[in-house]
């Protein structure tokens, strides 16, 4: 089942260790006042950067499009609305993790009504 990542909006820059599908990672959240946005960084357990400084934008995977060889196998998505405030993190703005298996299971099954077009 998809999982919410914890958050601590009272701490403008915090980092924690989390286990995703059996592997441990470090997630760092940073509130940038000038940009009024939360930014997330993904690090290995020894704090080796994997993907750094990605904005939490609602309806988007902050790490999408990156080849995260050392990262988790699944996908993140930001649930909420944009134009959020700092204290919204963990409440109306949440980072959610989906495993690859969950995504595969959500792919609509073929109905047999498809028309195959050969070009």
């Amino acid at each position, binding site marked *: *089942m*998809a*999982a*919410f*990542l*914890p958050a*601590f909006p009272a*701490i*403008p*820059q*915090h*980092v*924690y*260790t*989390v*286990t*995703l599908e059996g592997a441990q990672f470090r997630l*760092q959240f*940073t*509130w*940038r*006042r*000038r940009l009024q946005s939360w*930014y997330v*960084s993904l*690090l290995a357990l020894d*704090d080796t*950067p994997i993907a*750094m*400084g990605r904005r939490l934008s609602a*309806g*988007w*995977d902050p790490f*999408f*499009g990156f080849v995260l060889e050392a990262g988790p196998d699944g*996908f993140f*998505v930001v*649930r909420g609305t944009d134009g959020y405030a*700092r204290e919204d993190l963990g409440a109306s703005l949440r980072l*959610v*993790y*989906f495993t*690859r298996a*969950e*995504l*595969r299971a*959500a*792919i609509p099954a073929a109905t047999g009504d498809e028309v195959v077009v050969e070009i």
Partner: protein
Amino acid sequence: MAAITIIRDDGQAFSFDGVVSYTLTASVTVTDHPIESGSVVSDHAQVQPKMLSLSRAIVTETPFSDQDSSGGADRVTRALEFLDSIAGALCTVVSERYGTIENMAILRYPSTADVLRRLAFDIDFKQVRLAEAGLVDIAPSTPVQVDAGGAETSGAAGLPDAQDAGEQATTPTEGGEQDEADTSLLLDLATALGVEV
């Protein structure tokens, strides 16, 4: 008449019969930045390359016997060919007053012919500074640091300033429509960007 010798990078040299005068120009450019009050302020000075100008450098078919170049009807032609050969290359200019000046590039060398069997050149040289390109390692960017109020601070190091919340557990979502909407969104993104799920 002064003696001036130009030495090419392959060691070949050419000496003029004589030079009436020559001028070495050393200059510094001081920057000017106009400010509101109407005056200017300067923040630094640039040392300009040296310039050497030969005025009336004479080449004849009959040089003085103590010069290293033999005379002859083609000496004037050889002078022109020599100056052509140093155009675009670096050479060394040796003069009596200024000694040896290296890394000189010829800028212009107009010549005047008159009824006598000679050419008179006015030659300008500019000294060239040589630089070597190098590689510089630039440290990777570090995460921005913020203070307790969320203001960005400068000069702080990377991750160690972040407050470590230790090991945390995830919380299962409620499932339902919101999860379906998120998975649908991710699948759309994957399809659009060609990411294999």
